[in-house]
């Protein structure tokens, strides 16, 4: 039997969808499941964590864990992994996971794999599949170490709504704060906006929007759809969009039901961040733009004409 510990993906006190997705996959593999939740207020999430498919909930709660700090976060996960005798530790795709996973792997003497999209267990043989080179190839990787720490790519696994676990809460000791890299302050992104990585629809804006007026126009479309609002790198470099809005190889990886790329040409680095989307709609005035090679639906046209029309049509169907 394999023991899989899933690290709860919690943002601004809210449990994110990836936790249930990872737990569903773990159960589908026939594993025993536990989850570890780390933060300032996570105890109350225990029923949700059980419902998401975990049979044990390790809770590491303390005011000192309000702002993410990689060292204590990793220490909490290692503690839970040891308590659970975990063969695998899975993180959802997040900056938290990317920062903590290599530390946890070193401490558990485990193999470390980031951005995985599949895991197979065949007796003692464990293999994972992950994209590389900006999603241009897939690697099949054999795990030699007895343990595996993995960060699962957004959208890789689906949550099974019929799965649920049982509540068995175990409180763990709070790790010491990191005195070497001391967290001073968090300049919060919380602005009441829809979380890009968790949104069912994402609208992203690219260079075609030209300036602030163009950005505002596309943002209004995102608002009408209650969608997450993302960006190509060009708009971040131009100072028109914040770093944390960048979708791509280096930024956020998203896999919504519908991704609407507006005025985005489709550089390979951008495609690497969104080509897991179920349906892609592209709006671009250049009929040769590479984005059309991956889009299920494409509108060749000026976004300043098309976006207001899209808003109108959507208003009609939502009425």
């Amino acid at each position, binding site marked *: 039997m394999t023991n899989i510990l899933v690290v709860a993906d919690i943002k*601004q006190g809210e449990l994110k969808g990836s936790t249930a997705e990872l737990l569903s996959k773990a159960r589908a593999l026939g594993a025993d499941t536990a989850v570890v939740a780390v933060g300032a207020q996570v105890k109350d999430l225990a029923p949700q964590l059980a419902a998401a498919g975990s049979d044990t909930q390790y809770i590491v709660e303390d005011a000192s864990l309000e*702002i*993410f*700090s*990689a060292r204590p976060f990793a220490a909490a996960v290692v503690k839970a992994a040891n308590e659970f005798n975990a063969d695998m530790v899975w993180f959802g795709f997040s*900056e938290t996971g*990317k*920062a903590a996973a*290599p*530390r946890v*792997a*070193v401490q558990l003497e*485990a*193999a*470390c*794999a*980031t*951005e995985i999209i599949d895991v197979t267990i065949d007796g003692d043989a464990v293999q*994972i599949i992950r*994209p*590389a*080179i*900006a999603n*241009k*190839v*897939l690697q*099949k*990787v*054999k795990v*030699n*170490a007895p343990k*595996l720490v993995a960060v699962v790519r957004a959208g890789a696994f689906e949550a099974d709504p019929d799965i649920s676990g049982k509540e068995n809460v175990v409180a763990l000791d709070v790790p010491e704060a990191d005195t*070497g*890299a001391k*967290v001073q302050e*968090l*300049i919060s992104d919380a602005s009441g906006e829809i979380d890009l990585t968790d949104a069912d*629809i994402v609208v992203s804006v690219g260079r075609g929007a030209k300036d602030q007026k163009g950005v505002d126009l596309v943002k209004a479309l995102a608002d009408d*759809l209650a969608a997450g609002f993302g960006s190509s790198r060009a708009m971040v*470099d131009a100072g028109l969009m914040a*770093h*944390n809005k960048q979708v791509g*190889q*280096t930024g956020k990886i998203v896999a919504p039901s*519908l991704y609407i790329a507006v005025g985005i040409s489709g550089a390979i680095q951008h495609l690497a961040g969104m080509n897991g989307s*179920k349906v892609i*709609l592209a709006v671009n005035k250049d009929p040769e733009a590479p984005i059309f*090679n*991956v*889009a*299920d*639906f*494409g*509108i*060749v046209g000026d976004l300043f004409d*098309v976006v207001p*029309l*899209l808003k109108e*049509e*959507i208003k009609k169907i939502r009425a």
Partner: protein
Amino acid sequence: MKILTTVKKVVDVELNIHVENGAILDKGLQYVINAWDENAVEAAVQLKESHKADTTLVSLGSGDNTDIIRKCYAMGIDDAIQIDDPALANADSPTFARVLQKVYEAGDYDLVITGKQAQDTDAGQAGIMLAEFLNIPCVSNVIKIEVTDDSHIQVSRLGDAGTEILDVTLPAVITVSDGINEPRLPAMRGIMMAKKKKINVMDLAGLGTSFEDVGGTAPASEIVEFMPTEKRKGGQKFEGDPAEVTAKVVDLLVNEAKVL
């Protein structure tokens, strides 16, 4: 302040990559400096300019990395070490981190700056593992570095909840995101001077270690096969009257794709 930066030579992701029989075909591949490492080099050179930091570059791998090292010299790096050993051709992240540990320990560095990930593997592990092996502080995905005093820096990191500001005690490892800077284009004078500079080339034995010693012979994981990514196909593309095609596409999203 003594800074160590790392650079890796990687496949140019802009070009087509072909996979056959489980391996990537060499044909048509071109190699470039890893983009995030270029940000790391720029960050180091900026600290050289603002705080008289000494900058050393290390490049790991198998094969000649002279071209990318010369580029970093032209950007303003002072010294360069190239660890060139055929054993490192397919080494994994922990192995690279162990080699970096040997390089770090052979010098007397205050700060290690690496790119947040390599664009060929997209693993993002080596820098963080290096800090873990050395048991020194590490902050990843950094977009700003400011020197507080000889033994402290303040960094900004892009996290899940926003921008985190951390006070870091040196020595430390920082991995940088592309948001930190815009790497400079070397000036002609720098390019000419870079041609004359010496590169300290050594293999693992020259570094006082071996492939076995850095864990390379017993990797925690290994790639058994490459496969082509299942390519998305372009679907229906509409041109013509904007009002007509927009109405048509919204209808398809609602009734065919059922995502609206």
